[in-house]
């Protein structure tokens, strides 16, 4: 076990753990935000630069500080490492710059976007971003297009985190989409608009940190804060069948996987709880699902506006 200090909090973790995961083991607001890293998808991380932290002491043996800010999602801890995240002004300033960069080409169409209310870029911008932008040039624009018949791609909103590409590579048997072109022109694409017909392709909607990939069956139907999220399960032979149904009255408006505090799918029976496309897109009837109870959403989230849970319900499910 190696000892690491993050924002003056000490924790002992397995060797080979990344700084980000060590911080997540401590929990709370010292956890660096991550837009591209997704713990359930090996190979992600290192692209968005939002999780940069300052390492003021490399290790017990070599206490020199690391000269540049380190990517906490792919830097492994060393014994005696001292990391500063919230307490470092340099990190905060840098993160504000990263947010500004991520928002350079973002259309800021939150009032239209279906992701609004559960968007990681919104949270990141709210916590770390400035009020204005210094960017004066034209933003890159792409027309919205369909990836398969159930997923809509708004390339304008994409921050190129590559999470969805990893979903296509790791969850589906053959990869049919990736990133084409370079730099400013880079875009997510199914090669020559091949439709994705794979049982798990819908998970790229869940992993997308912004509203670039959205559910076409839910497109513009409602806003997330008008819906009531309920834990539900069904018998499915393709996936775990454990999902969240988002209800409006007696109607199921959409189905998503169960996500934890970091927006990643929760583990079900020791495996990542990805859900299949049948559960996500086709089972919109209440009779398909066994309702387990209300999903506890952080009470500071806009989604929990107007939803009231009794203190007992709060105790039963620990708020994450």
């Amino acid at each position, binding site marked *: 076990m190696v000892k690491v200090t993050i924002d003056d909090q000490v924790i002992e973790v397995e060797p080979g753990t990344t700084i980000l995961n060590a911080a997540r083991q401590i929990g709370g607001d010292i956890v660096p935000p991550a837009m591209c890293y997704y713990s359930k998808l090996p190979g992600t991380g290192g692209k968005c630069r939002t999780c940069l932290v300052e390492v003021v002491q490399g290790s017990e043996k070599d206490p020199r500080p690391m000269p540049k800010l380190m990517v906490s999602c792919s830097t492994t801890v060393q014994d005696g490492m001292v990391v500063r995240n919230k307490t470092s002004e340099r990190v905060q300033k840098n993160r504000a710059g990263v947010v500004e960069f991520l928002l350079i080409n973002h259309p800021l*169409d*939150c*009032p*239209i976007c279906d992701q609004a209310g559960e968007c990681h870029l919104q949270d990141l911008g709210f916590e770390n971003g400035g009020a204005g932008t210094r960017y004066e040039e034209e933003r890159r624009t792409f027309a919205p297009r369909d990836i398969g018949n159930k997923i809509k791609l708004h390339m304008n909103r994409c921050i190129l985190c590559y999470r969805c590409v990893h979903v296509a590579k790791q969850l589906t048997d053959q990869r049919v989409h990736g990133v084409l072109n370079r730099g400013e022109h880079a875009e997510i694409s199914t090669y020559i608009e091949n439709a994705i017909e794979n049982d798990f392709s819908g998970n790229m909607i869940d992993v997308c940190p912004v509203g670039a990939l959205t559910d076409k069956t839910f497109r*513009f139907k409602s*806003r997330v*804060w*008008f819906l009531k999220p309920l834990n539900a399960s069904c018998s499915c032979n393709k996936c775990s069948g454990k999902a969240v149904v988002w209800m409006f009255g007696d109607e199921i408006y959409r189905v998503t996987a169960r996500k934890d505090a970091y927006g990643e799918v929760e583990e079900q029976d020791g495996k990542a709880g990805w859900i299949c496309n049948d559960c996500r897109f086709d089972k919109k009837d209440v009779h398909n699902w066994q309702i387990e109870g209300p999903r506890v959403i952080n009470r500071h989230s806009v989604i929990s506006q*107007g939803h009231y849970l009794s203190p007992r319900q709060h105790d039963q499910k620990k708020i994450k």
Partner: protein
Amino acid sequence: MEHLSNRSKVVSDKPMTFMERLYLPAIFAGMMTTLKHLFRRHNTIKYPEEQRVFAPVYRGMHVLKRDEKGRENCTACGLCAVACPAEAITMVAAERKPGEENLYREEKYAETYEINMLRCIFCGLCEEACPKEAIFLTDRIVPTEFERDDFIYGKDLLVESMDHRIDITKRQHTGKRSDK
């Protein structure tokens, strides 16, 4: 018995005197009170003929604004409805079809937009929440109706018509909506 106040009067069934039985002094005393008020300043106005001046930020009936090209500003983002403490606002969004660009400003628009004027408390939070400068409260008064259903205002009553545009320049915020 101890009295709670000093205003209690002992009631007696003593017969009235001659002056009291005439009633005239009492009538004159009463008339004097009435006549005195005739020459005082009135606290009320004769409403339909005469109307009070409204403050420029008076919060009356809502309007859903159109932009300078006549397109509806509202994009059905739902922020007014979530800000509304009385839960008076409901809406259904729809996607703009090709060819409707002159009707709706954004890709998404409100297919139905309803405000229940009986629920509304005219607090103005919807106006404050609106990111698109679409909804404003105006100095118009919600008229009285006989049926409850008539107070549920749909888009037909809320969206301004191009012929009779509602002036909200006095309360318009600046810099929220870009004209790109």
